[in-house]
Structure formats: C-alpha cells, structure tokens
C-alpha cells in the first residue's frame, strides 16, 4: 500500500469514528425531545452522557495497548480524535448538569462541587481534560516541545482514575458496573508497562 493510500484510508477511518462517536449524543438528544428517556429524562440524559464520556475515555486509552499487543499502528492515528470526542462528551455532561439539571443555580452548584465528593472528583477530572484539549493541536505540541507536551498529557491517566471514582461514588449500593469500568482501566494502564518490562528483560 502506498503512503497516499494509507493516508486516505486513515482519513476515512477518522471521519467514520468521528461520526460514530456522536451517535450516542444525537440519540440521547432525540429521545430527550421525543419523551424516550422515561419519567426523569434530565437525570437519564445526564447519566447517559456521563457514561459515554467514560466509555470514550477508555476507548482513547485503548489505542496504545492495541499497538503494544497487536503491533497495529492505525489506532494511534485515532487517539487525538477520540480524546477530543471524550472532551466534547465531558462538556455536554457538565453543561447538562449546569444548565438543565441545576438550571444555573450557582450557589447550589458550588455547594455540590465542594461538599459532594463524587461531584468534586468529577469536576476535577473535567478540569484536567480542559488543558489537554487546549493543547491538542500540532502547533501546541511544537510550542511546548514534545517531551513537555507528553508529560502534560499523562494527566489523562489521572482524569480516567477520577472518572471511575466519580462513577463508583455516584452509585448508591450497586458498584458492580463502575468496578467493571475500573477493571478495564486497570488493564489498559497495566498493558502500558509491557514495553518497559520487556526492555528490562532484554
């Protein structure tokens, strides 16, 4: 395959992934408007957008392990796009909380963030994602220098852990589902240690 063929394929892959990533948000919006989210649509929309934020974050974090385990290169080409989709969902989730669920009741929101620990960690995770999204362009990589840029973007691991903790602390008693996401995250983080371990053995 020539270089230009590969580039063309990658471009279509990105378009496909980018479009697919917005299907859940579009479906949630459609169901919200048409009454398909049940008796408490605001809470349901909030939960769905939050869950999709976490799913996309874990998908983003699976690109590197796919390269490590299978030697595939194409997932790496999707990393930035998936990261930005994650940030878009995080923004949607946070906006629905601010503007729909709480209807901009600032006092209540500040109290929530300060006093309710699941909201505190969720908000922290969101804050962490902001500079990562802002420095996602090639220009920013150059400006920061690759080494510094990379160090900064390692914060995504912290955001992912906080995201899972946000979910675990959110549920009342049934922690099975958030712990499944936690286990997936552990595997994805653990696989990153494989090259280092291999190098040490060699």
């Amino acid at each position, binding site marked *: 395959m020539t270089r230009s063929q590969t580039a063309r394929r990658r471009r279509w892959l990105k378009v496909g992934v980018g479009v697919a990533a917005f299907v859940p948000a579009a479906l949630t919006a459609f169901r919200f408007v048409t009454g398909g989210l*049940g*008796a*408490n649509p*605001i*809470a349901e929309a909030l939960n769905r957008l939050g869950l999709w934020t976490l799913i996309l974050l874990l998908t983003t974090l699976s690109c590197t392990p796919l390269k490590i385990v299978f030697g595939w290169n194409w997932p790496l080409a999707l990393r930035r796009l998936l990261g930005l989709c994650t940030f878009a969902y995080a923004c949607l989730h946070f906006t629905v909380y601010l503007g729909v669920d*709480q*209807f901009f*009741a600032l006092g*209540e929101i500040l*109290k*929530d963030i300060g*006093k*309710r*620990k*699941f909201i505190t960690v969720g908000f922290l995770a969101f804050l962490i994602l902001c500079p990562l999204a802002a420095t996602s362009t090639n220009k920013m990589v150059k400006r920061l220098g690759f080494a510094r840029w990379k160090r900064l973007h390692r914060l995504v691991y912290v955001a992912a852990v906080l995201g899972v903790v946000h979910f675990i*602390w*959110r*549920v*009342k*008693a*049934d922690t*099975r589902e958030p712990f499944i996401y936690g286990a997936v995250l552990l595997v994805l983080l653990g696989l990153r240690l494989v090259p280092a371990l291999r190098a040490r053995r060699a």
Partner: protein
Amino acid sequence: MASHLLGPRIPSREITPEGVYLARRQIIGAGVAAAVTAGLGVRRARADAPGLPATKKGPFATDEPQTPFKDVTTYNNFYEFGTDKGDPAANAHTLKTRPWTVSFEGEINKPQTIDIDSLLKLFPLEERICRLRCVEAWSMVIPWVGFPLGPLLKRLEPTSKAKYVAFTTLLAPDQMPGQRRGTLEWPYVEGLRLDEAMHPLTILAVGLYGKALPNQNGAPVRLVVPWKYGYKSIKSVVKLRLVEKQPPTTWNISAPSEYGFYSNVNPDVDHPRWSQARERRIGEFLRRKTLPFNGYAAEVASLYAGMDLRKNY
C-alpha cells in the same frame, strides 16, 4: 387464620350494587388494557392484578397534580428486581402475590398470620393522595389506596413493651432476581417508632390509581410514610414485628453515615450524594424547594419535639 380479627364475612357484591361493581370492573379492565399498550413489562406485571373493593376519599389529600400512572409504575427503586429505575417494571412479573400472608408478631397480645385477601377486607380502603420524596431528590404525587396502620396495630393489642415496629419484605431469590446478588442485605427490613406507625398519615397501601398495586410498586401490600424518604416505605411486606428496641433498617446497615433510622425529609440535612434542599418533581423541569417533613410538618413535627433532627437524621 386471623379469624378473631375479622368480622362476619360479607362478600363485596352485597356491599356494592352490582351495576356499580361491574362498571368498576370495566374501568379496571380499561386500565389494564392501557397498561398493555404502555409496555410489555408493565403488561406482564399487571395482567393478573386483582381488583380492589370500594374506596372512599381519605384525609390529608394534596390537590397537586398527580404523577402519571406510567411514570409511577416505570420509575421505581425496588432493588429486589434490579438497581436501574426501569428494572422493577421489567422484572417484577415474577413476583407471586397470591397466596400471600402477613404475619404479626412480637410484643402484641394477638399474634397472628393474616391472608392478604382477608387483610384487604379488614378496614375500609381509602384513597390517599400524597407526596413521595425519594432521597435521590426526585418526588411524585401518588393516589394510593390503602388503610391507616394505626387501627390495625390497636387491634393486635401492643403490650407495654412495644416501642417500635419492624417490617420485613419477602425473601424469595427465585422470584426476586435482585436478591441473588448481595447489593443490599436481604431481606429488606425497615422500622418505625410506634407513635410514627400509629400516626394517621402512615398507611398500608394495597393499590394506586384505584387499582391493585402493580408488582413493581410493592404488591400486594406496602408501607407508605409520606413524611420520610421513600426507602422507609418498605414494599411487599410479609412481617410486622412489634419490638422494644430500635430495629435495624436496610439502608442504615448499608451506609450508616448516609441513611439514619428516622430519615425524615429534611432540606437542612444534606446527604453526601445529594443536596436535599431542592427536588425535581417528576414531570417538571425546574427543581422546587423541598419542604420539612415533605410538607407534612403541621401533622408530624410534634412527634419529634425536643429532638435534634441533625443528629437523628
């Protein structure tokens, strides 16, 4: 079974003129038909729902708009059937509500076990339209059908040692899939102080919207304590035991710092997960202010005179 609590048996056809009785049956039939179109889970849970004897208007009714039947019966916390709000409506069809007995035990002179169909005829059924406030900061207005618990307890003749009432839900993992997992300690248990249980706002509900309780709402009989968070209103009750000491309660066992024994609706005492200052009434967009004792302060605040409600949350 329960013979000395029951008066002479009068078939309901002798109380209600047959025309009225049949017309009512037709209305119930129409309700079931509506439920069929509402969804498969609802239909399965309601198809064999028995009718209810005549009901009269009860006291304390709120005139706020009632939460639609569909929302009341598809948005439920009933962890015995799963932890998602839609799980109970989808799964509760496996609950067998006949035969069903409720046993009354402990510090009473007349311990006994009463069959559900006898229990339904023990007292005149009333329509009780009241607010339900969930600890998750949402609320509904539900027209329950039931009878006050107080007169029933009086007939059981509590001894001088009876200070609390302990309630227990059915334990049947074969019918209640949620009980096959250790999400909570099973069976679900709840409790009230005797004076709370005797309060005229406290009822045993056996129906809603004029029909027998759908399984997902706690069929065939459940507690309704409208000034407390919803989890106090224990569902599918099989046992009431009058006791001397404060009984354990399920959510308190699960997370003692979050759920106290009293669990009175209180906008000033926050829950670690939810501010209790405001709530979303199902069907409304903007949150509304939560009222102390869920708006029943005039009726029940005196029960807690002199108590520190921050400590006794």
